[in-house]
């Protein structure tokens, strides 16, 4: 297993470089332009000069190599400088966003707190609710609990967040006036009051997002549990006189986790990708909003950096999922 993991990590390096290349070419081919958001009152020749000032006059391979150099050499050097007070990155250009002309990594770091608070929290909440719902729904198939769970999760999944989010705002912010409709990213949690405020502004976006996660994970959990509950080994275990909780929670659950682990592992990178629509509706301004603004503004360095970081997470999470398969079911072997 250790050798397998190590080999997979090694293979990840060329894979990621290839992914970086494909993403770059995709952005290169895409018909957007960073000047699209400038007003039409700026004449074309000024726009052309601005493009050149952004470095867009260079051919694509030069810009790709420049980005690789900045990402893999200059940025780590800069962090070392920050940590140890050295000066490796002195005078070297970090990755600069087209829109804000500021280092991309600083902006990403600024966005992480609200993304983790809202999107991360909703994911954890969603999964924690989904697992018991899935297990109970399968164990008591077609009970009232199962029917209600199915109904709520399917409705929850098929109602798009652009509708459910606004509906919550209309009810809880406009009509009742209980919750703020606009997320305050500058709020510092340092007392009971600010903590309460933070909770109040998180409730609605977390609810909207958690509903989606819950629906998805609980459906897979239920389906997989149902498959396993009818297996022969369950009958054997029961026949041996094992208690129901041991049978269900130890044997069946463990064997049912493979699809669920896959889904959860696939979901984690998307936390860091943010939730574009939900963030926009509640003005959370996390990584999702950053990414969509960068995409709309053709801010290639920003898009490139965020999507590449996501790619790293995707590759890592899928590796972890593969390793977990082996732990859950020792019959799965990777030589």
């Amino acid at each position, binding site marked *: 297993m250790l050798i397998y993991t190590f080999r997979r990590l090694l293979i990840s390096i060329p894979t990621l470089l290839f992914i970086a290349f494909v993403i770059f070419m995709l952005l290169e081919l895409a*018909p957007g332009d960073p000047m699209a958001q400038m007003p039409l009152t700026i004449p074309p020749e000024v726009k052309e000069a601005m493009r050149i000032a952004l470095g867009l006059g260079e051919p694509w391979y030069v810009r790709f190599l420049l980005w690789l150099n900045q990402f893999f050499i200059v940025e780590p050097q800069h962090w070392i400088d920050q940590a140890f007070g050295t000066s490796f990155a002195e005078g070297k250009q970090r990755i600069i966003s087209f829109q804000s002309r500021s280092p991309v990594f600083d902006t990403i770091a600024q966005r992480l707190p609200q993304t983790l608070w809202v999107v991360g929290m909703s994911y954890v909440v969603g999964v924690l609710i989904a697992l018991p719902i899935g297990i109970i729904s399968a164990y008591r198939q077609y009970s009232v609990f199962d029917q209600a769970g199915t109904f709520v999760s399917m409705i929850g999944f098929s*109602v798009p967040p652009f*509708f459910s989010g606004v509906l919550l705002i209309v009810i809880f912010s406009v009509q009742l006036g209980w919750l703020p409709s606009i997320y305050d990213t500058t709020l510092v949690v340092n007392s009971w009051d600010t903590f309460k405020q933070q909770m109040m502004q998180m409730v609605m976006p977390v609810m909207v997002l958690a509903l989606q996660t819950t629906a998805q994970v609980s459906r897979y959990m239920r389906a997989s549990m149902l498959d396993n509950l009818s297996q022969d080994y369950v009958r054997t275990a029961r026949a041996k006189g094992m208690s129901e909780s041991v049978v269900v929670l130890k044997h069946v659950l463990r064997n049912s986790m493979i699809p669920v682990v896959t889904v959860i592992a696939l979901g984690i990178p998307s936390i860091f990708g943010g939730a574009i629509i939900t963030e926009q509706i509640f003005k959370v301004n996390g990584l999702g909003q950053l990414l969509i603004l960068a*995409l709309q503004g053709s801010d290639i360095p920003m898009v490139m950096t965020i999507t590449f970081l996501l790619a790293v997470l995707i590759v890592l999470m899928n590796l972890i*999922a593969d390793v977990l398969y082996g732990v859950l079911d020792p019959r799965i072997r990777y030589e």
Partner: protein
Amino acid sequence: MSDLTTSAPAAAPKPRNQWLDVWAQFRTHKGAVLGLGFLAFITLFAALGPTLWGVDPGDLDIRNKDVRPIYHMLFDSDAKVSWAHPMGTDNLGRDIMANIMQGGRISLAVGWTAMILAVFIGTLVGVLAGYFRKADGLLMRFTDLVLALPLLPLLLVMMLLFRDPLRAAFGPENGIFILIVVGIGITSWMQTARIVRGDIMALKEREFVLAARSIGTPSRRIITRHLLPNVLSPIMVSATLGLATAIITESALSFLGLGFPSDFPTWGKILFDSVDRMTAFPERVIWPGLAISLTVLAVNYIGDGLRDALDPKIRGL
């Protein structure tokens, strides 16, 4: 079906038709039957509705804008209602019922086709990667790559490269339809692929597969007869969730200007356009929202019923 089998006890013990059994079992699942009924209704509503109703969904009638649905008469006798527009009209005076019908055609077509495409690709990749160890590395790295691609630029590039050739070959509507279906399909198969692969990897080490292999069953038959039926339930879940995702993604695409032309209603787009006027005209979000949710719910129950019906243990064989 049960009385059919019992009515001929004297006949020679003919092998019972497997599909009749499946149908018999399916019929006992109340949710599934209801789901099937609703799906048939909504499909007919969308397919035949426009012909029967005969109102062009794009027809503007600005003097009759913001007409409320007919049931508003019950609690508000002053409401602006009209039998000519039983579900009311929108802010440009377009008939909402005609739009829901026409929108249903497109949404259902896009949803089903894109979902089937995604589930097909996902299952194929998942089975191949899970079963053939040699293909696993390459296929899963490819899956990682597609997962990492940002959706918006990908669709923009597809638009750029293929819109005009497809438009020339199939006409403006069909060209866009193909583009959207393929765009949604090829960007949403990865989850299915990884789930199927995970299950296949575990299944192929089980005793019954080892037994099949040891008696020389070819790989193709092992996959189709032994492995696929056992990964059916996660595939069903993927399909149900995929249908909802495809219908909603289509509306997100029109919002970004990548979808159908603006005079083409779809459920997702009607819902999206009506959100701003949700408090004043709740019916405009309720109808398309209900249509999407109930369709997804129906498909989910049909999936449940089918899985039970196809499971020989439940069928009592």
